[in-house]
């Protein structure tokens, strides 16, 4: 069985290699090959999963060492895989959702001449993501970590001819690099502290070192998680990442890659458990992002960017849960999985809508689409219900647990966190209802001629480059696109219930992450009731604002908060002014300094030497008599020296 683990990675990796190096010959069959290999990986995952189910809870972890990677004195890095329940969960999610999105992409990317390459990148992503989750040490995790970053970079910038896409891709990679810096420092700290960076030895030895060290490691890991999972303050790239094709947004920027940060924190649970300060920071980051993402999601008119804000917010939930320690680990992962289903479904739905609307992304130019694309409407609607936590659907179970766990943290913190989580639930209900109403209900605004809206400049260029200005003819998407949506809708509806009933998911993961019930100050039912109230309030406000009144095509000016939220709460502007502009000035002045000062000192030395030589050269006037004087003077000096020497 162990030997199958490598196969998980090998299949998509092979696909990537063949598709990217294969050349035009594979253009016609490339997408099938890519999908097939993704599916093969999924099959292997299922085989491994069934095998794992057949074993006792403690014997489930599999381990496979392939070869010694970097053998240097005192530093052993192996290419070795570890497949335990946590990894298995991710592997199933990644390969499962991944395969579905491959299928979806066959239809979605049908008219793109570079479809083969797209599938190559997707396969590359799958391989990297799988390495990330099944690595048995942090260094190999780092490989996967950067690998998904690369795949994300390539896929966001897939339409490279658009400057906005290229810029967004670059931005995503750079922001992620800041996070990666944290991860590499964390690994270095582990190496100097524990002498290794394999999960087993590190996580077992947390008791043998100081809390300060562990806090440092924890914070650095958090920095990494912030980068990858788009948490404040490194969240700015996710919105821009929507420049990528929609399947990419669904797979990478909703279901899998962005949740890697949660995986990292849960995986390093032992470190965080022993470093309460670091945990505190994790919780704060999660809570802040939860609200931040939600607010941004409320203000965006671009359907994908609204969903991106939502993703940020939902991952905030997961990070919050992960920061709660053993109380929340399992629920963080559970929400991660259910979120994977419904958010992927939502994105695919959004992609389907765009597909039918000439790639228009501005929701103000949608409206009343439910008649034209019924399958999309139903699947999107189910995803919507799941995400706002409609009772009985996936989101209800997983989010409810997190809110409960937040209260269960205890003390003032518990109350604050719980309230924040409840507030987040309300806002979620609001913005998702807004999306739903603006897209599928109300007046068919797309029939009106499009007028450019000056207040939303970030929307306009995208619309211009993507689609023609012809009036759209909304239509349902082909089967290859709707089937994955239907499958994901199933997941959105039933996964939560399946996991929660009988605490199946808890028992599955508990051996790896551990679990603690905490001491909830209020009962579970109270929390559920409060959540329901929040939900109803959110939906009601959204209905009042967007359901009853017609939605203007041109975005209104809006309040100060709205305008700020449209610009990602100005955080991006801050980055731009401080980091980009500041960096430009810094580098420009450094170039100047290098040229004038560093080079100048040397050139100045050379020039003064030249000047001195010029003076000396004048002595060489070519007149024999001058030379004779020098000789004569020299002789005199020599004689004087001799006499002096003798006198002395």
């Amino acid at each position, binding site marked *: 069985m162990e030997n199958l683990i490598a196969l998980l990675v090998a299949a998509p990796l092979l696909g990537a290699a063949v598709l990217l190096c294969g050349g035009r010959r594979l253009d016609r069959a490339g997408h099938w090959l890519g999908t097939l290999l993704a599916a093969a990986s999924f099959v292997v995952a299922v085989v491994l999963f069934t095998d794992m189910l057949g074993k006792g809870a403690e014997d489930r972890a599999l381990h496979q060492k392939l070869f010694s*990677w*970097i053998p240097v004195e005192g530093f052993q890095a192996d290419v070795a895989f570890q497949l335990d329940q946590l990894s298995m969960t991710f592997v199933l999610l990644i390969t499962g959702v991944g395969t579905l999105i491959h299928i979806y992409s066959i239809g979605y990317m049908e008219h793109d001449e570079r479809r083969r390459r797209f599938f190559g990148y997707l396969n590359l992503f799958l391989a990297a993501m799988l390495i990330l989750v099944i690595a048995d040490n942090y260094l190999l995790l780092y490989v996967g*970590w950067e690998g998904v970053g690369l795949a994300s970079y390539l896929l966001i910038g897939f339409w*490279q001819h658009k*400057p906005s896409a290229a810029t967004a891709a670059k931005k995503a990679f750079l922001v992620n690099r800041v996070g990666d810096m944290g991860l590499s420092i964390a690994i270095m700290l582990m*190496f100097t502290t524990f002498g290794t960076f394999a999960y087993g030895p590190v996580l077992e030895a947390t008791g043998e070192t100081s809390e300060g060290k562990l806090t440092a490691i924890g914070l650095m890991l958090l920095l990494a998680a912030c980068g990858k999972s788009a948490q404040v303050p490194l969240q700015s790239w996710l919105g821009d990442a929507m420049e990528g094709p929609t399947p990419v947004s669904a797979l990478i920027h909703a279901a899998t890659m962005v949740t890697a940060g949660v995986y990292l924190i849960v995986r390093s649970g032992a470190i965080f458990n022993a470093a309460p300060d670091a945990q505190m920071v994790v919780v704060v980051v999660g809570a802040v992002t939860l609200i931040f993402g939600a607010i941004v999601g409320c203000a965006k008119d671009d359907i994908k960017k609204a969903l991106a804000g939502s993703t940020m917010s939902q991952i905030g939930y997961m990070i919050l849960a992960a920061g709660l320690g053993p109380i929340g680990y399992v629920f963080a992962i559970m929400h991660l999985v259910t979120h994977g289903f419904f958010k992927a479904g939502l994105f695919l739905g959004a992609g389907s809508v765009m597909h039918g609307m000439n790639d228009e992304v501005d929701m103000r130019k949608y409206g009343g689409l439910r008649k034209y694309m019924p399958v999309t409407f139903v699947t999107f609607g189910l995803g919507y219900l799941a995400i706002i936590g409609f009772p009985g659907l996936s989101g209800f179970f997983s989010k409810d647990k997190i809110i409960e766990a937040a209260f269960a943290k205890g003390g003032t913190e518990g109350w604050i966190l719980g309230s924040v989580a409840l507030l987040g639930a309300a806002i979620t209900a609001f913005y998702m209802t807004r999306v739903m109403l603006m897209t599928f209900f109300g007046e068919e605004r797309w029939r009106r001629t499009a007028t450019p809206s000056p207040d939303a400049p970030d929307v306009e260029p995208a619309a211009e480059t993507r689609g023609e200005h012809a009036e759209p003819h909304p239509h349902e998407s082909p089967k290859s696109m709707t089937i994955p949506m239907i499958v994901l809708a199933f997941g959105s509806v039933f996964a939560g219930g399946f996991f929660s009933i009988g605490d199946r998911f808890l028992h599955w993961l508990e051996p790896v992450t551990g679990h603690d019930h905490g001491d909830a100050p209020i009962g579970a039912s109270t929390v559920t009731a409060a959540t329901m109230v929040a939900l109803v309030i959110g939906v009601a406000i959204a209905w009042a604002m967007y359901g009853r009144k017609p939605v203007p095509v041109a975005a209104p000016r809006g309040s100060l908060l709205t305008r700020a939220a449209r610009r990602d709460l100005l955080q991006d502007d801050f980055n731009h002014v401080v980091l980009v502009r500041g960096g430009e000035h810094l580098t420009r002045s450094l170039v100047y300094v290098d040229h004038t000062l560093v080079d100048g000192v*040397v050139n100045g030395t050379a020039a003064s030497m030249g000047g001195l030589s010029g003076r000396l050269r004048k002595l060489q006037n070519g007149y024999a008599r001058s030379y004779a004087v020098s000789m004569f003077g020299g002789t005199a000096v020599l004689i004087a020296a001799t006499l002096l020497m003798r006198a002395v």
Partner: protein
Amino acid sequence: MSFPLLTATAALPAIGAVATAAVPAARRTAAKWLGLAFSLGTLVLAGIALARFEPGGDRFQLTESHAWIKDFGVRYELGVDGIGLALMALTALLIPFVILAGWHDADPLETNSSRWRPTQGFFALILMVEAMVILSFEATDVFLFYILFEAMLIPMYFLIGGFGDRAHSGSDENAAAQRSYAAVKFLLYNLVGGLIMLAAVIGLYVVAGSFSLSEIAEARANGSLSMATGTERWLFLGFFFAFAVKAPLWPLHTWLPNAMGEATSPVAVLITAVVDKVGTFAMLRFCLQLFPEASKWATPVILVLALISIVYGALLAVGQRDIKRLIAYASISHFGFIILGIFAMTSQGQSGATLYMVNHGISTAALMLVAGFLITRRGSRLISDYGGVQKVAPVLAGTFLIGGLATLSLPGLAPFVSEFLVLVGAFAAYPAAGIVATTGIVLAAIYVLVLYQRTMTGPVKAEVQGMADLKARELVVVVPLIALLLFLGVYPKPLTEIVNPAVQHTMSDVQKKDPQPEVEAAK
């Protein structure tokens, strides 16, 4: 007496240089093939040397020793340890690619036939450089090394000054002036360094009475040689200065961007990937081995300079408008990493630094050569003159991206292994240094991706329209380099195996032990 393999490895390209130069002017193509054949022959010999080397054996292997100048105790002594062997192999490996990439760089200019370009000379000079560099990696006699260290400036000077990049802005005269400025700057910087080193070499002879590395080491071991602290420091500084110029270390770096910018890209590769490595190699070989105490004494200052190099080089790379100068500043940043690894004086740092030398050679060669192909097509070195190349020449763009990703040390490609080892090694000994150096990886991402974005993506510029994708010859150059980057990124063990023992020797020379992990130390 066994076959003098090391001498042969250096002699073959030297013979090749003479043979290539002797080809009649009309038979230009024959000269190219001849040069390529000799470089490949050298590669074969280097391969044999790799095969004959036993990682667990003596420190210096395949040794040769002959008296040379008896009066001064100068000997012709050769021998390689893992470090020298790895770099020798790198040199032998890169030269065929350099020759292939520069296949047309020295052709006569069609437009202006009055300007004669000695094609034969170009390839002969490249082979000459190869011979000298290889021999300098093999020399275990300080004097012999010094002579080679200086002598390789001569062919390099002519390569930089005589065969400039045809892509330049402004008039031909202006470009020629720039080129000769760059060549003279290169020569002067390195000459000044070399002369200071000469003083130190003489000083060493006065103090130690020998030029032989092994004799000095032996004398030091059995206590018959003990240098006064002050003397050792001065000698160390003399050696180090020369190597720091060559490497180059901030603030002695300004010759590199000029030289790399003005030279043709194969020559730029020769400078940064091959010749500059002699500087960092010599720090490991001579500075640490001959002056261990002084090396430790100077470590704090050198580490600070290395860190400045890393950050400063990267920041300047971000600010460049010229593709080749950008790569040059990136190299300065990378040399900072190498020096950081050497002077961190931990096993990981030094192994990392050695791997770094090899990997940086390959990755820069890949990036620079592809950049050269790009520049040749468009005839401009300015980043702003490009845009949308990806659309018209996807393979070129793809290989350029891979070269760039190697430069920013993406895991899975060879430079990551070495960079991470250097960082870990530096962090273990000096945590602050490790953290500052880590910012280098973010900055590297900035300059690489900005370069890629501005040249390759976006709308296709009119001048770029119709640009041809990579040709077969160019693919032959790039693909093996990329394959090697991938291979060494995934499986660097063959390299670490030969490097590790040498690093352990160096560590025992400086009498340093790796810092113990906190947890194990507690036990």
